[in-house]
């Protein structure tokens, strides 16, 4: 439950539009738990849980090339396209593949730490042991530029991956070392 609380904790930000906000929310995908009655047996079906979070992204047209540039400040990730829609789709693919393969390779924590993500427990959360992920400040000029289009993208990762990562960390195992 503590893990769920931690993952459900949404980082409040009075500067929501000015900061790249990682809002962790708990998302249940599909039936949380379905039970089938038959032959005097209760058969629990497997659960599929995912952690959904939001990342603010922006796009603008480049003066240098005329291409549209998509930027996710929180991940400091950029992509491009011939149109705003293509830049957005390209950035979206970049983020999804990046997160998926960072998780798969066991380097997401390290990558996020390099990007300035930190954990803290002093953000008004009742449970002192709950970790809340903070995101570094976004460069302000981005949202103040004329011609910049911003949106919030939703992404998700499987809960069991996070749980395993946390379990390994709590067991004193360094998540940075090769398995």
């Amino acid at each position: 439950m503590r893990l769920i609380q931690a993952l459900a904790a949404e980082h409040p930000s009075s500067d929501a539009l000015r900061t790249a906000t990682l809002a962790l929310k708990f998302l249940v995908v599909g039936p949380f738990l379905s039970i089938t009655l038959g032959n005097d047996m209760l058969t629990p079906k497997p659960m599929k849980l995912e952690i959904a979070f939001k990342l603010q992204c922006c796009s603008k047209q480049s003066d240098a090339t005329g291409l549209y540039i998509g930027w996710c400040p929180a991940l400091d990730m950029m992509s491009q396209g011939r149109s705003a829609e293509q830049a957005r789709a390209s950035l979206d693919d970049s983020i999804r593949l990046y997160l998926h393969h960072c998780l798969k390779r066991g380097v997401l924590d390290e990558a996020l730490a390099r990007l300035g993500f930190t954990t803290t427990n002093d953000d008004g959360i009742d449970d002192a042991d709950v970790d809340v992920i903070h995101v570094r400040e976004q460069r302000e000029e981005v949202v103040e530029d004329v011609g910049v289009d911003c949106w919030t993208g939703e992404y998700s990762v499987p809960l069991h991956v996070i749980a395993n990562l946390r379990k390994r960390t709590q067991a004193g195992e360094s998540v940075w070392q090769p398995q």
Partner: protein
Amino acid sequence: MAAAIAGVPPSTLKDVLVGRGWVVIDETENVWLLADGKDPRSEPVAIPKHGDVVDPEVMDSVSHRTGDLSRAVLDAVRNHVAAQTP
């Protein structure tokens, strides 16, 4: 630095990385995702597919993620641009 490496097609940037031991580990119609083939725990890098050239800002973003290869990648890209220039 960015201006010096403008004019490189996305596929060339990808090929430069592949030529230095990076491998394409995933792709969509919009991007390639590459990682260091010698390091299974290297952080992946996304290269966009669209556009005749890689925008300098995107190039900077990519080069910052290629670690020790950054200088070698930039040098290789510069050489490519020089070779294409009459």
